[in-house]
C-alpha cells in the first residue's frame, strides 16, 4: 500500500529519485535546493540507494558529470536553483542536443543582484530555450509524481530528452506536506529500465557532441526541435498512464472554475494554489472569473492552451520574472504570441509580481484581476505593470 507521510518537499523529491532507482547523482548544494541533494547524499551513504553520488566543485561540473553518466546509460538525477542553474547554462544545451535524459529538480529562485535566495522564475526564464522538457509543479505530491514521470518521459526511446521539474523555492521546497509515496513495485513497472540506444562503451565506440560544420548544424537543430515538440505525445501518454496506475491526473494546461468565465487569471507554479483561493472568493462574490495554469512549459502546449482560453475575453497573466526592456512578462509574451493568429483574440494583460520571494496573497490576486479588467477596458500607457511595487 502506498503510504502517506508528512515530509519536507525537498526530502520527498529525493525519495522520489530513490523510488526511481537513480544510478548517479552529481550535484552541488545551493539554497533553496540544498535539502534535496543533502538527503540524496544521506540515502546513498546509508546504503538505502545504490547509486554513485558525485560531489562536484560547481554546478557547471555537476551537469557535466551528469552528461557523462547519462551517456553511459546510467539513470541520472540532479537538482539546482537560481545562480546554480545559471552556472550550468551552457551545459544544459549540451544535455538536450546530445539527447541525454537527465532529470533535474529546480527549486526556482531569483537571480542576483541584489543577492536573493528567495523564489521567483528568473532562473527558469533564462533557461527557457535550452531544449529541455520543463514541467511546473504546485505542491509536494505533484513534485514527487512528476519526478517519477520525468524519468519515464525523458528515457522513452521516442523522446530521449532531459527534463526539468520546476518547484518554487521555499514556498514549496521547504514546506512540510502530506505526500503519498507510490509502492516500489508499481514504480518499477511504471518506469521501465533505462536503455540508451547508443551508450558510451569501449566495445562499440561512438562520438557524442562532435564538431558540426555549417553543412550539418542546421539539420541537427531541426531534428532537435521536431523531437522536443513531438515529445508532447509521450508526455500526455505518460500522464494518462500515471493517472490509471496512481489515480492522480495531470495535463499540460489545467483549468480551475473556468465555466462561463470571461476573465481568466493565468499562473504557473505554486502561486496557482493561492490564486485558486482568490478565484473561490471572487466566485462567491458572483464574479465570473476562472484560473488557467500552465503545467507543461516546454514543449509549450499550444493546442491545449488555445482550447482552455477559447471563451475568454480577457486573460490576466501573472509573471514571476521580468524580461528587461522586452515586451511584457515572459509567460505573457508567449501567451500573446500563441493567440495572435486566432480569429477571436482575448485581451491579454500582463502583470509581473512575486519577485525575489515577495508574497502574493489571495487579496493580491483579487486586486490583480480587478486591475486587469480595468486595463482591458480602458487601456494603459504601460506595456505591463509590476504589482505591489512601492512608489
Amino acid at each position, binding site marked *: 500500500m502506498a503510504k502517506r507521510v508528512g515530509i519536507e518537499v525537498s526530502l520527498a523529491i529525493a525519495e522520489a529519485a530513490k523510488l526511481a532507482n537513480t544510478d548517479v547523482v552529481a550535484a552541488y548544494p545551493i539554497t533553496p535546493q540544498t535539502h534535496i541533494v543533502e538527503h540524496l547524499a544521506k540515502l546513498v551513504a546509508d546504503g538505502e540507494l545504490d547509486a554513485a553520488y558525485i560531489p562536484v566543485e560547481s554546478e557547471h561540473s555537476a551537469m557535466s558529470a551528469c552528461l557523462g553518466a547519462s551517456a553511459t546509460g546510467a539513470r541520472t538525477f540532479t537538482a539546482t536553483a537560481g545562480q546554480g542553474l545559471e552556472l550550468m547554462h551552457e551545459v544544459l544545451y549540451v544535455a538536450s*542536443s*546530445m*539527447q*541525454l535524459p537527465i532529470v533535474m529538480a529546480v527549486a526556482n529562485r531569483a537571480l542576483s543582484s541584489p543577492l536573493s535566495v528567495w523564489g521567483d522564475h528568473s532562473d527558469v526564464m533564462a533557461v527557457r530555450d535550452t531544449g529541455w522538457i520543463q514541467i511546473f509543479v504546485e505542491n509536494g505530491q505533484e513534485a514527487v509524481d512528476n519526478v517519477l514521470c520525468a524519468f519515464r518521459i525523458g528515457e522513452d526511446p521516442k523522446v*530521449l530528452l532531459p527534463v526539468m521539474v520546476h518547484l518554487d523555492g521555499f514556498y514549496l521546497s521547504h514546506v512540510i506536506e502530506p505526500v503519498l509515496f507510490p509502492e516500489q513495485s508499481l514504480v518499477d513497472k511504471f518506469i521501465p529500465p533505462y536503455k540508451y*540506444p*547508443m551508450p558510451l562503451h569501449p566495445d562499440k*565506440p*561512438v*562520438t*557524442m*557532441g*562532435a564538431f*558540426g*560544420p555549417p*553543412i*550539418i548544424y*542546421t*539539420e*541537427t537543430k*531541426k*531534428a532537435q526541435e*521536431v523531437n522536443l515538440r513531438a515529445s508532447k505525445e509521450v508526455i500526455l501518454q505518460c500522464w494518462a498512464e500515471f493517472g490509471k496506475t496512481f489515480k492522480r491526473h495531470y495535463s499540460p494546461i489545467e483549468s480551475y472554475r473556468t465555466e462561463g468565465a470571461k476573465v481568466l487569471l493565468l499562473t504557473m507554479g505554486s502561486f496557482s494554489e493561492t490564486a485558486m483561493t482568490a478565484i473561490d472568493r471572487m466566485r462567491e462574490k458572483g464574479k465570473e472569473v476562472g484560473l488557467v495554469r500552465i503545467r507543461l512549459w516546454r514543449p509549450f502546449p499550444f493546442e491545449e492552451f488555445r482550447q482552455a482560453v477559447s471563451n475568454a475575453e480577457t486573460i490576466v497573466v501573472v509573471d514571476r520574472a521580468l524580461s528587461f526592456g522586452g515586451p511584457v512578462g515572459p509567460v505573457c509574451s508567449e501567451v500573446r504570441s500563441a493567440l495572435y493568429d486566432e480569429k477571436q483574440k482575448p485581451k491579454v494583460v500582463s502583470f509581473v509580481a512575486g519577485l525575489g520571494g515577495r508574497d502574493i496573497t489571495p487579496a493580491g490576486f483579487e486586486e490583480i484581476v480587478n486591475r486587469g479588467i480595468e486595463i482591458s477596458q480602458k487601456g494603459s500607457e504601460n506595456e505591463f505593470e509590476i504589482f505591489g511595487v512601492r512608489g
Partner: protein
Amino acid sequence: MTKPESEFTWKDLEIGGIVAEPGNASQYQTGDWRSQRPILDTDKCIKCGLCYIFCPEGCIEQNAEGYFEANLFYCKGCGICARECWVKAITMIPEEE
C-alpha cells in the same frame, strides 16, 4: 559515412547527432578552405622529415622515393612546413580559384 554530409537530411541523423562510425573524421576534407598550397622542390629536399613533424594537420607522408609530401585533401595551407624547412625546399603558392 555512408554518404557525404551534404546529402544528410535532418531525418537521417542518429539520435543526438551521435557519430556511430569510429574514425570517420578521416573522411572529412579539411583542405577545402586552403588559400595557398605547399610545393616541394625535390632538388633541394634532404628528406629530413622536419616538415612532417611540424605539420599541425599531420597530413605530410613519406612517399616511395623518400620525399615528404603534403596530402592536399587535408592540408590547410598554413605554411608552417615552408617556414620550418631549413633548406627552403617548400614554397607556398596561392590557390587559383
